[in-house]
């Protein structure tokens, strides 16, 4: 295992220490339980937006804490959901009297831990609402599974809902908005290489030198299909068609097109992927009015990409463009 770490058990803690040291102007880090929160929290009268999940997907979620996005993020161990006490303590730290919105990715562990946290907070008189993000179209038989996983759309949802919270939306409005974002976004990813979980020490799965995995999850969960490596344009076409047909997106729809790197993908390849995805969107008559290209929701050092398409309305566009000031995403301020 080739990693620039000190010890597999200290990866999450030390990275959080580094985050605190680098971005003390934007965020604070609390340890035991671990959570990252806005330097200016609590913002009185504002709904606190909190997310969290296993670590190893950075910058998501800890890198998205700050003005215009998350009030707090609760990082679990690598690829392991955080525990309810983290969400409970984070919520108490940041809530400004207007309730707490949990953004939860659809993994059984995440859902159960956030659910326990919500129960504990309600018992203490803090109002909560939760929305589960499940945008991964790779999961086809979702009736017979935990359902679709939460992947790339989570980044866009946190930005849009974070901006709305900053504008003063109340808990019900935010929940409705978040459900609308979730209903209008779809994603799918692929991997060229596996990642290696630090405490495991070897690759989660093996891919031959000429193979790739289509429909991979963000924890190295196997995807729809393992197949021979193909040219980028063919790979992107497979992802795009699965995504676009699912909603389905319609000619004329205004969209945000998000090409995401899985952590070990060079940026030059992301733009090759974007080029093809944009050409396909044009073919389908979609209007790509906003874009995001970069490694925002990752799987450690995995090489690969995911595509996310979000159908936008005027409100979402306005909120997307609002200022955001976090370690991982920043503009307008």
């Amino acid at each position, binding site marked *: 295992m080739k990693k620039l770490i000190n010890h597999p058990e200290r990866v999450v803690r030390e990275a959080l220490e580094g985050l605190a040291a680098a971005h003390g102007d934007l965020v604070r880090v609390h340890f035991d*339980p671990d959570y990252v929160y806005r330097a200016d929290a609590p913002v009185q009268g504002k709904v606190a937006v909190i997310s969290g999940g*296993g670590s190893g997907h950075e910058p998501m979620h800890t890198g998205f804490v700050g003005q215009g996005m998350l009030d707090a993020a609760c990082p*679990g*161990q*690598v*690829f*392991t*959901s*955080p*525990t*309810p*006490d983290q969400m409970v303590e984070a919520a108490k730290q940041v809530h400004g009297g207007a309730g707490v919105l949990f953004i939860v990715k659809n*993994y*059984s*562990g995440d859902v*159960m*831990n956030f*659910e*326990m946290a919500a129960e504990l907070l309600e018992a203490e008189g803090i109002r909560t609402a939760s929305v589960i993000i499940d945008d991964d179209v*790779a*999961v086809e*038989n979702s009736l*017979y*599974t*935990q359902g679709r*996983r939460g992947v790339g759309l989570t980044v866009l949802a946190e930005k849009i809902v974070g901006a709305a919270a900053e504008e003063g939306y109340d808990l019900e409005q935010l929940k409705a908005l978040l459900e609308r974002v979730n209903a209008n976004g779809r994603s799918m990813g692929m991997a060229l290489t596996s990642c290696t*979980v630090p*405490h*495991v020490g070897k690759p*989660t*799965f093996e891919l031959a030198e000429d193979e790739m995995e289509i429909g991979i*999850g963000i*924890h*190295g*969960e*196997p995807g729809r299909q393992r197949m021979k490596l193909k040219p980028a344009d063919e790979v992107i076409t497979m992802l795009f068609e699965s995504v676009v047909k699912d909603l389905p997106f319609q000619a004329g729809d205004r969209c945000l097109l998000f090409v995401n790197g899985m952590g070990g993908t060079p940026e030059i390849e992301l733009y090759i992927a974007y080029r093809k995805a944009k050409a396909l969107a044009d073919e389908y008559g979609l209007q790509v009015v906003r874009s995001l290209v970069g490694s925002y929701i990752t799987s450690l050092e995995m090489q690969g990409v995911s595509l996310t398409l979000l159908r936008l309305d005027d409100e979402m566009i306005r909120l997307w463009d609002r200022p955001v000031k976090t370690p991982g995403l920043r503009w307008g301020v």
Partner: protein
Amino acid sequence: MVISKEAVLAWIRAFAAAVEQHKEYLTELDAALGDADHGANMHRGLQAVLDRLNGVADRDIGTILRTVGMTLVSSVGGASGPLYGTFFLRAGTAAGTKMELTADDWLQMLEAGIRGIVDRGKARRGEKTMLDALGPGLDTLKASLQEGQPLNEALRRSAEAAREGMEATIPMLATKGRASYLGERSVGHQDPGATSAYLLLQTAAETWTAGA
């Protein structure tokens, strides 16, 4: 025969030791079906439990088990944290302030714990989860006691049923948890959660029947 508070503590320690011993194995099973962390998760949680166990060793069995549950909830994470946590919280609540357990107490605790797992995880048996080891363990315990078997024997049979249940997860199609994303590819692998659940009932049987 009754199960003393000391025996309950010994069981928790034995469970922690068994998970430690099989940590790599549990993780390997999870690598085939999920995200390769079940061994690490359970081990981390049970080490935290051991750290806190002495502090409540003088208290009643309910308090001890609820402490185990709360500690697991706040240190395991993932799916198994809330599930095992809820199991011990409910089992502890069922035990109440007792300082020793009869066969029937244990039966009711196990039943309450498993019901907690179902409430939390919304799975049923046959979905390739820890329930597929715990369920048969509970059924066999109940049947053996109804048949009039001594607790020793009932515990052994319960553990044996859990082992069979664990092995029976191999051909199952997973429809809950991360393994469900594998679809057909989940067939042919043993469920890690069912494996740790077998260890839970196996260490209970072993600890409580030792010298008996």
